[in-house]
């Protein structure tokens, strides 16, 4: 679909960032890789401003929680280059004990609410965000409900236990 092949993107990014980029894969043709927290600001700015790549559109910011991993919280960026019609997905994994990451609001105004939503549900602190408050949940909520340890329903409920369904 795009004018730039994923192979070319990988070469260009590994040449610049080397070890800082890992776990490169292409699920369903969408280039996905992990980056470290130290380079993410620089990486996003590079992707946005590079003359050839021009990932000018921030599609989405969200997060994911893998409690069993050491760096349990993952922040996931979806970028889109309108010029080349290519999408890219970047993940940054950070520990629950120190859930901080630089903000992307300096690059895209639209990152503001996306980061607020991510903070609201996963408790990720975006350093440098102009107004990091809860957005969808009530202000006096103390937990971050999309983390895996918070169950959807009342945990004392027994009628929906797996063994009733042979699982």
């Amino acid at each position: 679909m795009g004018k730039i092949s994923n192979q070319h993107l990988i070469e260009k990014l590994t040449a610049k960032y080397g070890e800082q980029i890992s776990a490169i894969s292409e699920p369903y043709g969408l280039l996905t890789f992990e980056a470290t927290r130290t380079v993410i600001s620089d990486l996003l700015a590079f992707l946005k401003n590079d003359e050839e790549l021009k990932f000018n559109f921030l599609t989405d910011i969200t997060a994911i929680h893998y409690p069993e991993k050491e760096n349990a919280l993952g922040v996931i960026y979806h970028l889109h280059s309108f010029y080349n019609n290519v999408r890219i997905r970047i993940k940054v994994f950070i520990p629950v004990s120190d859930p901080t990451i630089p903000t992307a609001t300096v690059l895209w105004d639209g990152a503001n609410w996306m980061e607020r939503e991510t903070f609201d549900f996963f408790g990720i602190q975006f350093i440098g965000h102009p107004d990091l408050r809860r957005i969808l949940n009530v202000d006096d909520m103390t937990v971050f409900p999309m983390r895996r340890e918070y169950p959807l329903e009342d945990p004392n409920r027994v009628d929906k236990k797996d063994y009733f369904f042979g699982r």
Partner: protein
Amino acid sequence: MSNFITEITPNRPVYTDNDPQGELTTLNLGPTHPATHGVFQNVLQMDGERIVSGVSTIGYIHRAFEKIAEHRPFYQITTLTDRLNYCSSPINNMGWHMTVEKLLDIKTPKRVDYMRVIVMELSRIADHLICNGILGVDTGAFSGFLYLMEEREHIYEIFEEVCGARLTTNIGRIGGFERDFNEITFQKIKKFIKNFPPILKEFEALFNRNRIFIERTSGVGAVSPEVAMSYSWSGPILRATGVDYDVRVNEPYASYQDFDFEIPVGTTGDVYDRFILRNEEMWQSLRIIEQALEKIEKEPKGVFHADVPEFYLPPKEQVYNNMEALIYHFKIVMGEVETPKTEVYHAVEGGNGELGFYLVNDGGRTPYRLHFRRPSFINYQMYAPMSSGMLLSDAIINMSSLNIIAGELDA
């Protein structure tokens, strides 16, 4: 004509106390206000009729869909997507089905794709009808709305014929549709595309060159393409600024590449441009539906779903009489089908922008994580900053023309 908004003040709450003469008024616009269609709260600082600053409060109808989705099998998530943008829920349903099909590598027959295109374009028309009709009402012209609503009713009757429901449709299944379009459906669609153009023409005649309407809307909420893209706008409001981004063309799904249609773009991105653009999109949707009806004629009859027994629920009468169907029914409902452990992002062009589904699957019965990229949520964040400096009545029609749907805003 007012100037483009090229710089926007940071989106910060401004409950200002340093107003020495006490001339600013704090106005709570919403959460339930007759002029805002849905649950929107904006706390505005007003200097007379003019808005000095504002802050949006959202989340009044937050229903934790992403959390619920982590506990539901794929086919039950469709009902959640209904309740995002409820003005065009078939697009959401189809978008979700296509996401799962992409994950499972299911190839749908062409006839299914064309049926989907018909349903999606009909709901796009319904969505734009509501938006433009209401915009007319908010500018004080009630009659256009009354002309159009009858046509929306006809679209809902088509949906009713296809799936039995009108608003929250739960239309289609993973792999295709739950049943074939019957003869009455085709008759109703044909009747609609015959009867709708004169009515849309009449609606355009009421508004397009209407001096009162033009003076009321042109120059209101004009946005430059740079700012719009920086705010991650998508859909008609982005195209009204002059950016020709449409998911149907950039990343065709459901065989949109087989169709001949145009993507209208605006120039100034103001309320008037958005209005004209939505009207034009309705004409293009009609074109697509006509082509789809022609194409369906050439496809083998009676094909309405892909041959994927592991994911497509068998008909009920077979479940009771056929061993194989019973096994598959059991496997699907109990979630014992193997699914790939991977992640997928799929986007469709919703009624008001790029509706994306980011699905992370761990091979279990339910998604490990499902995130909806909701265009209303992302488009709405510019509303408060862009309102400052506007007249209150302009801010109202600006909100109407952004086509923000509360269900999608709050998920």
